[in-house]
């Protein structure tokens, strides 16, 4: 099994603020982490490799410092990585990101069997890149997967896809693209050995010039959507806090409030 895991380095969202004067993101000094849902994708890829053999290859697009997120994946046990890094890729929306990742996978890992991604990244929260990538690569997709069984001989997977009231059991031929939710597994922590060996594993840096794709579809040029304004959300009005009151009296206040608001 050749398993590709697409990952993203994201800012810790709790730290992101808007500069009230310039109305731009204050990214300076914001710590970066591996997107939390991506860890479930990596873990599952490692488990599939442990069971069926093969290779786990990390693919990411991002600035040079995304190397840190790659190292974490390699320390967890991935075999090697491809890092798409070029100023020409900057400013990409989901369509351009998906296009670039798809082109790279097609060109450098043409014999892959499974692509695994975290369902969404915590910064943009769009959940669009994996699906758009599946379309660019003409793959079937199973999104929001909480369990996977791979049948290498039958060249198929059976996955449990989360729904609003349970799950669907879906069968797809290989190759397939799957997106992981946290029900899928319990990601391992990198071991000391893993951390030490990660530095010796191969990370291939790919620039726009290395890719066969249409350069007009990379980065900002290939992005049909444009953020025209960012602003701070409307602050919630200051709430009423009931402290040191008898429970029945407190309950009366709440119910009275909800009644007046027409909620009940």
């Amino acid at each position, binding site marked *: 099994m050749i398993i590709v895991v697409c990952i993203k380095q994201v800012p810790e969202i709790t730290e992101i603020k808007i500069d009230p004067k310039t109305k731009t993101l204050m990214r300076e000094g914001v710590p970066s982490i591996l997107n939390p849902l991506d860890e479930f994708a990596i873990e599952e890829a490692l488990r599939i490799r442990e069971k069926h053999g093969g290779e786990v290859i990390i693919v990411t697009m991002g600035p040079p410092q995304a190397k840190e997120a790659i190292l974490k994946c390699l320390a967890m046990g991935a075999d090697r990585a491809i890092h798409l890094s070029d100023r020409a890729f900057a400013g990409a929306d989901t369509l351009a990101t998906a296009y670039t990742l798809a082109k790279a996978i097609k060109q450098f890992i043409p014999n892959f069997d499974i692509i695994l991604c975290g369902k969404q990244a915590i910064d943009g929260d769009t959940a669009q890149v994996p699906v758009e990538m599946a379309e660019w690569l003409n793959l079937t997709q199973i999104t929001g997967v909480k369990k996977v069984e791979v049948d290498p001989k039958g060249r198929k997977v059976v996955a449990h896809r*989360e729904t609003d009231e349970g799950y669907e059991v879906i069968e797809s031929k290989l190759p397939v693209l799957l997106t992981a939710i946290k029900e899928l597994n319990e990601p391992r922590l990198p071991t000391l050995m893993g951390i030490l060996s990660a530095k010796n594993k191969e990370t291939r840096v790919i620039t726009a010039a290395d890719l066969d794709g249409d350069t007009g579809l990379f980065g900002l040029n290939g992005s049909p959507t444009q953020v025209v304004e960012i602003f701070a959300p409307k602050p919630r009005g200051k709430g009423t806090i009931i402290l040191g009151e008898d429970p029945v009296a*407190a309950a009366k206040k709440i119910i009275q409030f909800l009644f007046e608001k027409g909620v009940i």
Partner: protein
Amino acid sequence: MIEVFDTCTGCGICVPHCPFGAIRIVEKRAQINEACTFCGACVKSCPFGAIEIKRKMVTPADVSSYRGIWVFAEKHGNHLRNVTLELLSEGRKLADKLGEPLAALLLGRNVTDFIKTLSAYGADKIYVTEHEVLERYNSDGYADVLTGLIAKHKPSVVLFGATINGRDLAPRIAARLRIGLTADCTGLEIDEEGRLVQIRPAFGGNIMASILSHTRPQMATVRPNVMKMGEPDWTRKVEIERINVMIDPKARRIRVVDIVKEVADRAVNIEEADIIVSGGRGLGSPENLKLMIELAEALGGAVGASRPIVDSGWLPHHQQVGQTGKTVSPKLYVAVGISGAIQHLVGMQTSDIIIAINKDSEAPIFKVATMGVVGDLFKIVPALIEELRNVKKENPTR
């Protein structure tokens, strides 16, 4: 434009894949006739890569040829999802502002009963496609039909609910048509140039962004429970266009083998619920869940949970609110014994009214609470249930 290259062997594999019956094999080569809607189903079926659809990026000059607001009608069992009706109500406003028609896209099997409702909530026109393969949502079948309809009729806006299936479907269509898509919008506006301004939270709701799409149609998924559902008008007239499709069930690449329901009591889809009662670590042990469920029942709401509750296996993941669970915006969110880690807050802080009950007065949940009670939830929740019953008794109509 669609093109068949010399690598075509005339094998005919594409023929049953075309939902619109537009392909014939003539002299060992696929021939595509005017029934083609450019949906792309044949392209992905061809083992030789012999069919290509050339799609141009939309130029400003083309924009005026795109007209109409479209809403994808999402079903759930025997009813339409609320978000569909919310989107029709919102779409009606956008359509009136632009002076363009509002249409609903209805796919499924035996779905005629839904037509009246779609029209009552504002649709001028309904495109109806019925087929056994469309009975249950599946990405390939739905994406093929909808891409075809969009490519043929060129609407200016297409809206989907940001539901599990809406977010599985819309990006598939966007990538095939090579157009922009904005995820999980919480606001839609028309600017002075008639463009759709798509407003959405980013970075876990810490930032709002206004987004424009340079391509057409302008596509977005919209968060359930954010747009206001209007009053239905059952006297509205509606135009119906039925589209016949031919989908070969055997040609599908993917199939649903089983559908498993594991719904607990009052576990209605929390993304669509008007009222949610959520429990956290403060509940102490799983037996105490029933207290919270009782409150949810008294309020007529759904049951949610913070991550620790789900991680401990007390409630299933689809009831989890927050960063690795669902984002909800109900009219009323009651947080019972939830301290309010940022990962939880990003999933519920857009709720209209937030009531928090926690024993720790420093708990971050109180920062977003409309009304908070510092105290013992095991005393306050029963008092709430009791008081609710009293109010209901005094006001039987409410």
